[in-house]
């Protein structure tokens, strides 16, 4: 169910209404029913039901067994087996083609005349999210961070809570237990806050992201014709498109959840004010980063394998190098996993995995050198100009890496990068070229004004909760802001006939 369709709007309104009408002790049960409806809406099949049940029963059962046999050796095996079952299913459904492509490439390289066909499997919606969420749950039970849920239906709700199925965020059992299974009364403040957040999300998606998508899609579809600065702009636009699409979806999700009194963890802050790639990732898909750090990166760093490796390298290269290896090797693994999670293709592994790792590695490694240069040249790094330069640099690096994310294949991405170097800066000034790619001058104006609003709100959001602040103002101001937002979406939104109902970039995960 796409978040910007009337189907979702209808579903959300009905769900919220019933949620507050029924007896409070049944609220969680109703949420489970509506979540399963959402989960299988238009995609029900016995196979999909089996996939979902495997993850549910495995994680629920593993939690109970781990709790029952605390401190016994069997617990570790249960943990490993259950995690492998869930991961195996996820890889089977989402990443098979990555392996098939790899084998095909290897066959080519070795001169073996054998190619395997790619497979296309219909995975249940949101499986990339709840697979990791349930792995996190099992690990938390194992670590004693949370008590296992004995009721399988409650466990099912934690796994399938409908707002998180399309775009996350990654939730943790400890944070959600009381919120999901607690009794909630209708709260007018929550209602206003949630509704405003939904509108803000829709503004990002329909007014900004959908507009950007038209430009980006045109350029990427014909990058030989639209080369040079067209590609540079499209690459920069794509990052904005991705951000507004993804964070807008999260706003809608969090708004709906907030109305029901269930707070979800923030997934985005203001990534475009980040001065480094490291900082950017602290503000982008926050819950995924936190999940990977807690369940992959730190355990890997502390693992016997990495520690022994560290000791081994210490003897050869010394303490400093071995320390770096024990830091960067788990980090590299983590980034590759982020790439794989984003999709079973090398484009994702390169864009949101390896390239991000390289940027962060270079940032860390070159930081002392940059510090020295700045000191020598007497550059004040705390001025607006320097910070602005750092933000732009980060944005451009990130935009470059996302060329791979947007491209269909690595070869295509390389082709796009090659074509990027054509020299045609006049397209920026001739007042016509840019308007031939699906967005006319008026659309560009709306886009630019909307982006200014986005950046200003983003900046304010770093200091305070903008929606809360709006609701602290007098009623006239509040209503003007809300009407402006609502009517901007209605009038300037890209929806209706002729528009594809929002291709949600993150929905495929």
């Amino acid at each position, binding site marked *: 169910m796409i978040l910007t369709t*009337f189907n979702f709007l209808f579903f959300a309104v009905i769900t919220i209404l019933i949620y507050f009408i029924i007896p409070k002790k049944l609220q969680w049960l109703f949420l489970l029913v509506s979540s399963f409806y959402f989960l299988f809406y238009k995609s029900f099949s016995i196979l999909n039901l089996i996939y979902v049940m495997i993850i549910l029963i495995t994680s629920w059962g593993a939690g109970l067994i781990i709790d029952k046999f605390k401190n016994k050796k069997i617990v570790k095996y249960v943990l490993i087996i259950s995690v492998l079952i869930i991961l195996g299913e996820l890889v089977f459904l989402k990443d098979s083609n990555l392996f098939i492509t790899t084998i095909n490439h290897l066959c080519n390289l070795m001169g073996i005349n054998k190619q395997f066909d790619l497979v296309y499997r219909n995975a249940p919606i949101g499986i990339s999210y709840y697979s990791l969420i349930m792995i996190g749950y099992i690990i938390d039970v194992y670590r004693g961070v949370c008590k296992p849920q004995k009721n399988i239906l409650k466990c099912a709700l934690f796994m399938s809570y409908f707002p998180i199925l399309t775009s996350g965020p990654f939730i943790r059992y400890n944070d959600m237990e009381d919120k999901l299974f607690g009794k909630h009364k209708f709260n007018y403040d929550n209602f206003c806050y949630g509704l405003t957040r939904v509108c803000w999300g829709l503004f990002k998606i329909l007014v900004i992201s959908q507009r950007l998508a038209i430009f980006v899609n045109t350029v990427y579809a014909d990058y030989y014709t639209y080369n040079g600065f067209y590609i540079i702009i499209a690459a920069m636009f794509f990052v904005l498109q991705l951000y507004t699409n993804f964070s807008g979806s999260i706003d809608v999700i969090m708004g709906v959840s907030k109305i029901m009194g269930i707070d979800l963890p923030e997934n985005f802050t203001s990534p475009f004010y980040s001065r480094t790639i490291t900082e950017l990732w602290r503000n982008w898909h926050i819950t995924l980063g936190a999940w990977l750090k807690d369940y992959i990166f730190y355990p890997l760093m502390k693992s016997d394998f990495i520690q022994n490796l560290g000791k081994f390298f210490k003897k050869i290269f010394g303490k400093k190098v071995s320390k770096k290896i024990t830091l960067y090797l788990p980090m590299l693994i983590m980034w590759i996993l982020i790439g794989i999670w984003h999709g079973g293709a090398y484009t994702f592994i390169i864009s949101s995995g390896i390239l991000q790792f390289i940027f962060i590695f270079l940032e860390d490694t070159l930081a002392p050198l940059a510090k020295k240069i700045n000191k020598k040249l007497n550059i004040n790094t705390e001025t607006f100009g320097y910070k602005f330069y750092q933000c732009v640099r980060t944005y451009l690096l990130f935009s470059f890496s996302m060329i791979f994310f947007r491209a269909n294949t690595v070869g295509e991405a390389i082709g796009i990068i090659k074509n990027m170097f054509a020299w045609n800066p006049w397209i920026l000034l001739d007042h016509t070229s840019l308007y031939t790619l699906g967005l*006319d001058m*008026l659309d560009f104006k709306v886009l630019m004004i909307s982006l200014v609003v986005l950046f200003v709100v983003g900046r304010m959001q770093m200091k305070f909760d903008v929606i809360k602040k709006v609701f602290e103002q007098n*009623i006239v101001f509040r*209503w003007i802001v809300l009407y402006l937002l*609502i*009517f901007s979406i209605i009038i300037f*939104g890209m929806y*209706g*006939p002729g528009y594809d109902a929002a291709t949600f970039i993150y929905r495929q995960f």
Partner: protein
Amino acid sequence: MKNFVKFILFILLGIFIWHCVFKVLWIEENGINSFYEDSEIPMDVIFLGASNAFWQFNTVLAFHEYGFATGMLATGGQSFVATEFLLKEAQKYQNPNVYVIDINNIAVGIDFFEEGIIRKVTDNMKFSKNKLDTIETLLKYTPLEKDEYINYYLSFLTYHNSWKSVNINNFKNMTMFKGYFFDSSMIENEPFSKTVWCDNEEKIDDNNEEVLLHLIDYIKENKLEVLFIIPPRTFGDSHCAKLNYAKRILEENDFKVLNFSEGNEMNIDFQHDLVNEAHLNVYGATKYTVYLGNYLSANYHLKKHTNDNKYLSWQNEYERFKDTFKEISGTDFESLVQEAS
């Protein structure tokens, strides 16, 4: 409670703003808007049909000359399928002495799908069950999937995008005069020869026939006074033969059908009075209005409202029309009327 009241006020104000915004974004030059605007004023005649109705029957001239008020539920290219629904719509607001139904489009295939033709009817109707039924029925003959119907139920999904073309005309409808359309294009002319009316018949589309028979039953059940007309225009042979077929069915059911394309009692000059092959220009329209207005006035006992204050806006619109005509053509409209009379 206080919050609930605030919320309701917020919604109501939002609906009001919505109404204003979409009134500006969606201005369509047809008669339906005028019909709703004047729905409080009793109307004597109501026209239904395609552009032949609202391009050719000058409602404000008819009021000035004969004193009766005319409502237009006519839209460009209006499918004959819509007739019964628009008749129902008219009945909700008015109880006229006579309905005038233009049957020209009964000769056009029912499955002729053009979004604009359907939208001109459905988007201009006020929200009601009748509107939903109209959409459902008209779209039945299109290749659209059911889940695409939403774009017709909620027309803002389509029109929100027209903000790009908003200009001064969106704030004031300058070309409609109580449902009659007139702008500078209507003083132009394209010379044609009068086509000779045929005698033969050709069966109309099965669906159209079903719709016609259903309409006849509906009119009889509701005991409505209806005059059917074939407008003055040029015709192809098949079109003419199909209209003969429909005319016969109507006459067999004791309905009066006036055929303005057969003979030429109004003295339409096909060299000067047509704006294109299907429509009269303002000169032809004046002759047509004077003739048909006289006929309606004489045959349906229509009241004269010329001195009734309730109808002041009709007289004012006639004055505005005269001024507009003079501005565009440089001649006096009254003399044109005298010629036509």
